[in-house]
């Protein structure tokens, strides 16, 4: 019978209760919180649900699911360390995005450019935090944190996996959480910085964009990227590849695969493996709090910069451009465009800005990929 007791002991030492560390319990709770936000609050559920579940799984003692032989650990090393998952998502985003609104009104690219100010402000902010004891962000860390302000999940994950893999979990959580919070974060800033009159501006209907223009667009973006910023080529390359699959009209089978099978499967795996970076030992640092704070600043500054650039364009265009669409320049497609539309409707119940806001919105995706390319070129060398 002492044999059986020994067996029981052997079993007991493999239970969770006997092995839990407090950090792990806390992180399981964080994972559950993400699941709550995803399911009940419907905050970016496509990412937060797998990410939250991944966080729970990777904090289970003994099981080692995020270890080198665990499912999540293997997915991470195959898909995130290599950059494959974010690049495939970017291909899918390209295949899902209609750049027509941007082609019809290319000026709105300036709004997408201005909103990237959030990225660099946050970078400075991260470096400034180093004065507080306990913070010791390198320039690479700061760049990876700054990219949260790009409001673009795959770009953030891609850059963080290259520049600061240890911070990836916190950066991804911040990026997706604040993207989900865009409808709450942006409106007060937008109202604060614009006048009632500006918000009421109705914009002219967008012109029709031909198929040839839509096919030319990804190629133009790619060529400019090749000539001036090849370090952005992986991201911009896959984005424009996906878009060309879509617009060429000759490879519908492949375009559908990029828009559905590939992006859905990759989203599940990406979420789970990003979740594996929410392990207690990686996540429970004071840096994480700093990153969450800085991410919030990034979104606010980006929004403000976009709106302010919108005000400049309102002036220079003789009042034809509604500055609200500048807020959509942060990306967070299509949430930010919807927010611009909603705030516009508050001021004038017949003022539909959605299509006009889509231009800066997709411009923001290109803008943050460009910013990521610069950061890689200078910091990632």
């Amino acid at each position, binding site marked *: 019978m002492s044999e059986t007791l020994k067996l029981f002991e052997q079993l007991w030492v493999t239970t969770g209760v006997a092995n839990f560390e407090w950090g792990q319990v806390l992180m399981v709770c964080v994972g559950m919180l993400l699941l709550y936000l995803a399911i009940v609050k419907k905050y970016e559920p496509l990412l937060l649900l797998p990410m939250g579940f991944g966080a729970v799984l990777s904090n289970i003692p003994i099981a080692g699911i995020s270890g080198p032989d665990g499912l999540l650990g293997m997915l991470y090393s195959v898909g995130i360390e290599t950059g494959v998952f974010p690049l495939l998502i970017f291909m899918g985003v390209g295949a899902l995005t209609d750049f027509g609104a941007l082609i019809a009104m290319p000026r709105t690219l300036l709004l997408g450019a201005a909103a990237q100010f959030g990225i660099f402000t946050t*970078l400075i902010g991260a470096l400034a935090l180093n004065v507080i004891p306990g913070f010791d962000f390198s320039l690479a860390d700061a760049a990876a944190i700054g990219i949260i302000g790009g409001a673009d999940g795959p770009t953030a994950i891609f850059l963080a996996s290259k520049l600061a893999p240890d911070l990836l979990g916190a950066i991804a959580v911040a990026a997706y959480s604040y993207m989900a919070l865009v409808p709450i974060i942006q409106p007060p800033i937008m109202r604060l910085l614009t006048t009632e009159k500006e918000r009421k501006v109705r914009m002219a209907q967008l012109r029709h964009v031909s198929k040839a223009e839509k096919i030319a667009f990804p190629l133009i973006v790619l060529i400019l990227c090749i000539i001036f910023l090849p370090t952005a080529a992986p991201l911009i390359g896959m984005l424009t590849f996906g878009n060309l699959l879509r617009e060429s009209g000759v490879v519908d089978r492949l375009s559908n695969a990029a828009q559905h099978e590939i992006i859905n499967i990759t989203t599940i795996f990406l979420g789970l493996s990003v979740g594996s970076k929410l392990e207690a030992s990686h996540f429970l640092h004071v840096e994480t709090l700093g990153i969450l704070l800085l991410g919030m600043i990034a979104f606010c500054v980006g929004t403000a910069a976009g709106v302010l650039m919108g005000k400049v364009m309102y002036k220079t265009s003789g009042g034809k451009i509604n500055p609200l669409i500048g807020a959509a320049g942060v990306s967070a497609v299509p949430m930010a465009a919807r927010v611009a539309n909603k705030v516009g409707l508050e001021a004038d119940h017949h003022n539909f800005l959605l299509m006009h806001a889509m231009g800066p919105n997709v411009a923001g995706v290109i803008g943050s990929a460009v910013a990521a390319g610069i950061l890689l070129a200078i910091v990632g060398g």
Partner: protein
Amino acid sequence: MNELMQQGFQLMALGMGVVFLFLGMLIGVISLTSKVIQRFETAPADAANTSNTDNDLIEVITEAVQQYRSDHPQRKK
């Protein structure tokens, strides 16, 4: 201000500069391309037609079902 912060500000200046340059250039090239393409194109509205047909069909079916329902009120719960 230490050296790291200085590097940060330089990166900011450089970064925002390149972002504006790149996207600004894109404005020019896209506008130019659009003009060139529009000059060469003759029938720009072909794509719209096919989707119209689809919408038509959906409209027709929707209406058919609605009419059917109003003709057969006993089926409603």
